[in-house]
């Protein structure tokens, strides 16, 4: 898998906020079928990395590429194939889960998908039949994340950018989320996930990167390391 050309890549990605370096010449390369977990303390540059891939943040140096296209030069095209799931998927409270999905899917693909198809995606993402038509205002965080997955499914996204998608979820919801992530990975998606959850990173990640002060200080394959060793390695890097 590592031999196929990367879907996501960062080359010398650098971002400055005033005097602080949020990203310091970061290199990343993620191939289809890979789940790359970015670990690191708050402020290490994980979200900034994701924001660069989304063109929410313009890098001061280096490039972020999706499918070989430079994000800053092709902001609309590169977004066509990606799905973004932040810590809480923000939706329109006055609309139902199905209406939200319909809206986002239509805007993403340019055509309104059939309702049955959208319902199927929501069911696949783990929502119950009776929840689909309720207004999102009453949804739990877990249900919102499921709508986020359904958007990715409807969009047929092969690049997933996840920014701490499971923090604050109860273990069962978190487990369900990662089961779905596995499903998308098997379909050939390249996944970049920022997380604080070492356990989940080891369980669902294929590769793990540890960031500190805008730099990647370690990178390893998830199957090369045990849970205890990963925690030890992480804490070693976090000590100054």
């Amino acid at each position, binding site marked *: 898998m590592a031999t196929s050309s990367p879907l996501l890549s960062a080359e010398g990605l650098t971002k400055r906020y005033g005097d602080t370096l949020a990203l310091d010449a970061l290199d990343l390369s993620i191939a289809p079928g890979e789940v790359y977990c970015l670990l690191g303390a708050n402020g290490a540059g994980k979200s900034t990395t994701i924001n660069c891939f989304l063109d929410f943040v313009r890098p001061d140096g280096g490039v972020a590429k999706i499918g070989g296209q430079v994000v800053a030069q092709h902001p609309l095209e590169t*977004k066509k194939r*990606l799905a973004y799931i*932040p810590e809480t998927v923000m939706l329109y409270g006055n609309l139902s889960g199905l209406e939200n999905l319909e809206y986002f899917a239509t805007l993403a693909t340019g055509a309104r998908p059939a309702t049955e198809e959208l319902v199927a995606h929501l069911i696949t993402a783990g929502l119950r039949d009776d929840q689909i038509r309720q207004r999102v205002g009453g949804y739990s965080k877990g249900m919102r994340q499921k709508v986020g997955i359904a958007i990715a499914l409807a969009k047929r996204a092969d690049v997933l950018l996840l920014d701490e998608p499971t923090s604050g979820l109860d273990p069962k919801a978190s487990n369900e989320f990662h089961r779905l992530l596995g499903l998308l990975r098997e379909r050939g998606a390249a996944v970049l996930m920022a997380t604080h959850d070492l356990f989940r990173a080891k369980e669902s990640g294929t590769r793990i990167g540890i960031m500190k002060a805008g730099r990647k200080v370690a990178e390893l394959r998830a199957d090369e390391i045990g849970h205890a060793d990963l925690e030890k390695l992480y804490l070693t890097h976090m000590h100054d």
Partner: protein
Amino acid sequence: MIREIARKEFRELTRDGRFRLSAGIVGGLLLVASLAGFTAWREQAAQRDAAQNSMQALWFGQPAKNPHSAAHYGLWAFKPQLPLSFIDRGVDPYVGTASWLEAHRQNEFRFRPAMDATAAQRFGDWTAAAVLQHLVPLLIIVLAFGAFAGERERGTLRQLASLGVPTRALMTGKALGVAAALALLLIPVAVVGSALVLNAMGADGLLRLAAMTAVYLAYFGVVLGATLLVSAKARTARAALVVLLAAWAVNGIVAPRLAADVARMAHPTPTAREFTAEVQTALANGIDGHSPASARGKTLEDSLLKAYNVAKVEELPFNFNGFAMQRGEEHGNEVFDHYFDELWSTYAAQDRSQLLGAVASPLIAVRFLSMGIAGTDAAQHRAFATSAENYRRELNKKMNDAIAENAGAGQAFTYQADETLWRSLEPFTYEAPGLGSVWRTHLVSAVVLLLWMGLVAVLTRRSTSLAVV
């Protein structure tokens, strides 16, 4: 894609209780103001017709009397109001709608409701125009201030932006969605308005209503576009709302007041007292101030005696007093033309300099157009005043000529005429200027409104990137 964005925006708005409440209030006010305005217009039109008819009957019914007494008896001219004046009463409450036409003087208009109004009523006169000019823009702001800023605050803008939707499509879609929600409220009112106007005025009324609709739609478009632009730039919905409410106050209150005050200072008008005094002085001493009435009378007498080669006025082939009175009228007319032209030009100059304020307030231009189309602007008031004044001059000439031709020497004020003379004066009629002349009068206002539309359109089209955080 744009349709989908508009549909979602519309769906969200119409599900929002705040929209339903505020739209209900504004729609209700608009409907009530229209219906009440229309009823008042219809009553006034009937009263006006009745008054004009009874005035005519009184004139015709005069017993045999001296024509000059008849000229002093005079009659009233009432300004007919177009049906659309129920939407916008324009300057009418301030300048009045009736004038007494009599011998020797051009009277000012009477029956100005503003004269009897208390200070509080200045804000209480809710015509449909006031709702359209002030409340609908406020409603648009309330509906659309959060279009982008609110989504930015709630985080949904990030989700939207991650989909790869062009900003321009978002802008257009949201504008259409809000417009559709507004249409829910405006279309019923427009239908009721059309029915009322059609009923009262026929096709020409519909044309005017269409023109007025176009002007207000353009105005709402400017307000909506500007609201979306501010919302797209503002970091929080609250900041957008503060900026927009300030702009609303500048557009609706501050700039128009300031422009009016500046215009008054740049082109001061005399007080009614000063004006009357000036006119009186000029009537007595001539416009140049050096030919008093007695001297003018003497010159006239001398030149007539010489021209007809007679020794005294009694020997002239016509009644000298009748002739002299008409000459006096003509001199008066010159004086009135001079001073009233000056006054009207000052008002026109004030209007023109007020338009400078349209840089900060498109409402100023909209107000002129709205009044013009409703037939209640200063230009159409002037057209009526001129028409009434011409009628007054015709009346006086008829009376004076009758004396000059028919009265024996020295019998100018004892000679009596009868109904034949009264009936020789055609009843007063007035045809309001057409829509074409309205556009010509308010060409600059129309251009200003178009410029505002162009500016907002260019700015919205140019906003290609949205800050999502």
